[in-house]
């Protein structure tokens, strides 16, 4: 439909407003994933990731702004006693005549004491306590972060994404150790999740495409009695909710000893899927019968026709099936949740959920980085296969 100019403007306005709403969660995901932790939990939020720089220990480094001092304070070094050698920031009133009022732990009790201390500097109210930003996880070992108190105007802040969050998020999943030929390798759990997901997805894609194509050919191109009934039964299985078959399926895989392995997630694919059979059958029906007949006259077997004529002609439809199954395997959550037990067998979905349940509620920057890492491949895949993908979805709706 050709639209008049005011109508075109209105359509654009609506679409732009909608696009902003639909894109915003993605923007929020990516910007949060690139913010340092202290910037994530902030109201009002910062729209862009920023980094702060200040002079700490005589060197200009990237810092974390821990807090702004709400009272005049002192920076002291304890020179004797149990806490000898510590460098502390105390309220001004707690330091008098070379003595600092601090708590000392004796056995399991905390005892207030006066410890001898030397003054490093006085810190006025309004200064910032800054700590050197270390590119490692909080629980990882290494030299302690240097810290200092600096005037507010000595902290320089500029827009800068914290790419390290992605490294952090991957390392945060833990490490997995394995031996190959006597050599020990250590990889982040995240890599193991990715590997498991790819195993399930790739094997599943091969299986489901092959088996579904075979069955679809049997339904579409071989005129045997009963095929209509069988096909109708095949279609009707799509109506059965997973909740019905969930328990017996678990029982079957348990009897096979497959619980805790990836097998329940990909082996069934080698027997085809109702939806894919349907999709491929619709496509096979459109291929002219003359082609098969000609091949048959040349002495080609039925399987030969399937393999040498039908499959090469059906590449677009096969691509749709493969793509759908890959996406499905990548996203599937309930299957891995039911069948997998040990962390090293988790897929990305389950790994990410596990990660969330362990560290959720605080480390949003890592969570968002991990979520981005899970979404990104699927979006890239979509951009490369957009046409196939959209056509696949369209045909399902029209011929349903």
């Amino acid at each position, binding site marked *: *439909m050709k*639209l008049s100019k005011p109508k075109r403007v209105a*359509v654009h306005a609506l*679409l732009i407003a*909608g*696009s902003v709403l*639909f894109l915003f*969660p*993605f923007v*929020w995901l990516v910007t*949060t994933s690139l913010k340092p932790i202290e910037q994530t939990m902030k*109201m009002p*939020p910062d729209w862009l990731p920023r980094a702060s720089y200040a002079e700490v220990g005589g060197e200009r480094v990237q810092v974390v702004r821990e807090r702004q001092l709400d009272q005049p304070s002192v920076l002291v070094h304890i020179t004797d006693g149990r806490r000898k050698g510590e460098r502390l920031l105390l309220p001004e009133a707690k330091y008098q005549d070379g003595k600092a009022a601090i708590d000392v732990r004796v056995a399991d009790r905390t005892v207030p004491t006066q410890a001898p201390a030397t003054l490093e500097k006085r810190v006025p109210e309004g200064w910032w306590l800054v700590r050197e930003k270390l590119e490692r996880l909080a629980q990882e070992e290494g030299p302690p972060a240097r810290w200092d108190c600096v005037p507010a105007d000595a902290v320089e802040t500029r827009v800068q994404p914290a790419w390290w969050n992605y490294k952090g998020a991957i390392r945060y999943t833990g490490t997995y150790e394995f031996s190959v030929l006597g050599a020990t390798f250590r990889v982040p759990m995240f890599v193991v999740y990715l590997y498991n997901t790819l195993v399930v997805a790739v094997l599943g894609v091969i299986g489901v495409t092959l088996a*579904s194509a*075979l069955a679809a050919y*049997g339904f579409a191109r*071989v*005129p*045997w*009695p*009963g*095929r209509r*009934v*069988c096909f109708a*039964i095949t279609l009707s299985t799509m*109506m*059965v*909710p*997973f909740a*019905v*078959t*969930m*328990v*017996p399926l*678990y*029982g*079957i895989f348990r009897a096979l000893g497959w619980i805790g392995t990836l097998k329940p997630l990909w082996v*069934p694919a080698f*027997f*085809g899927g109702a939806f894919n059979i349907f999709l491929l059958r619709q496509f096979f029906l459109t291929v002219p019968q003359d082609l098969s007949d000609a091949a048959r006259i040349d002495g080609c077997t*039925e399987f030969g026709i399937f393999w040498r004529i039908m499959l090469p002609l059906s590449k677009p439809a096969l691509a749709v099936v493969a793509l759908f199954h890959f*996406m499905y395997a990548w*996203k599937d*959550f*309930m299957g891995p949740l039911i069948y997998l037990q040990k962390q090293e067998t988790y897929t*990305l*979905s*389950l790994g990410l*959920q596990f990660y*969330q349940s362990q560290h959720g509620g605080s480390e949003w920057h890592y969570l*968002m980085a991990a*979520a981005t890492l899970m*979404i990104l491949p*699927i*979006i890239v895949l979509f951009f490369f296969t957009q046409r196939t993908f959209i056509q696949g979805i*369209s045909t*399902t*709706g*029209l011929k*349903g």
Partner: protein
Amino acid sequence: MRTVAGLNGLASGRMIAAMTRKQRRDLRNGLLFISPWIVGFCVFMLYPIVSSLFFSFCDYSVLERPVWTGAENYSGMVHDEVFWISLRNTAYYAAVSLPLGMFVALALAILLNTQVRGMTVYRTIFFLPSIVPIVAMAILWLWIFNGKYGVLNYSLSLVGLPTRVLPTWLDSKQWAMPALIIMGLWGVGYSVVIYLAGLQDIPVSLYESAEIDGASWWKKTIHITIPMLSPVIYFNLVMGIIGTFQIFAAPYIMTNGGPERATTFYTFYLFNLAFEDLRMGYACAMGWVLFLIILSLTLLATRVSQRHVHYER
């Protein structure tokens, strides 16, 4: 050659004897081609369906042999308060999110079917959220809905809503469900694509003749677009019924059924019964009840659609 193909019903022994050589070869070939599927169907579909029906009349924990208890699981549901809560929650979710989602999807599809510049970009934008894996989506929206630092509440305060009226979304009994519905709307792109395909199949000539008759945009939408699109609307409705009644991952990850069971959905409860409490027999019975609900709703939709859906033949 085609007469055999037209027969409905499975081949019996007598029929095989009466067949020509070609017909027998076709039968053998056909069965060979679908043999992987038949095996898969029997092992992963037929057997589970039959045994699930059997288990639904048993006390079964998967660790021990099932013990026949008759209809106890089914009668137990009547007195199971959580069962009714989960059913009500699921019905609430379906009753709101399904029509709302269908309306938004249809409206977007109509907008995306107009001829303005940059359409491919718009289409991609609206479609993208629907390919985001559910776990990643859940974690992202947990953060967006966060009551304290969430960007949604911040945006609402920017439009002038006072902070005290802003809900804590997933932590609030009243607002957890609307939150999940909002998140669901974000993933509406999949049905938009199906509607779009349907819209593109409507012959332009219909609109052209309506224009000659001086029909307005609204009239054309009501009298051409919607009737011509009705098979697709019906398809999306049935898929929507099947999908919304099985919602599981979002409440599992985001709310764990809470607060105060406000998001304890049917499948969520069923999953917990089966794999946390190991009450597998009861879970199977609930599975069958769910199947019957989905089946009757689908049949109802089909009955209604037979009166209203316009099929072009």
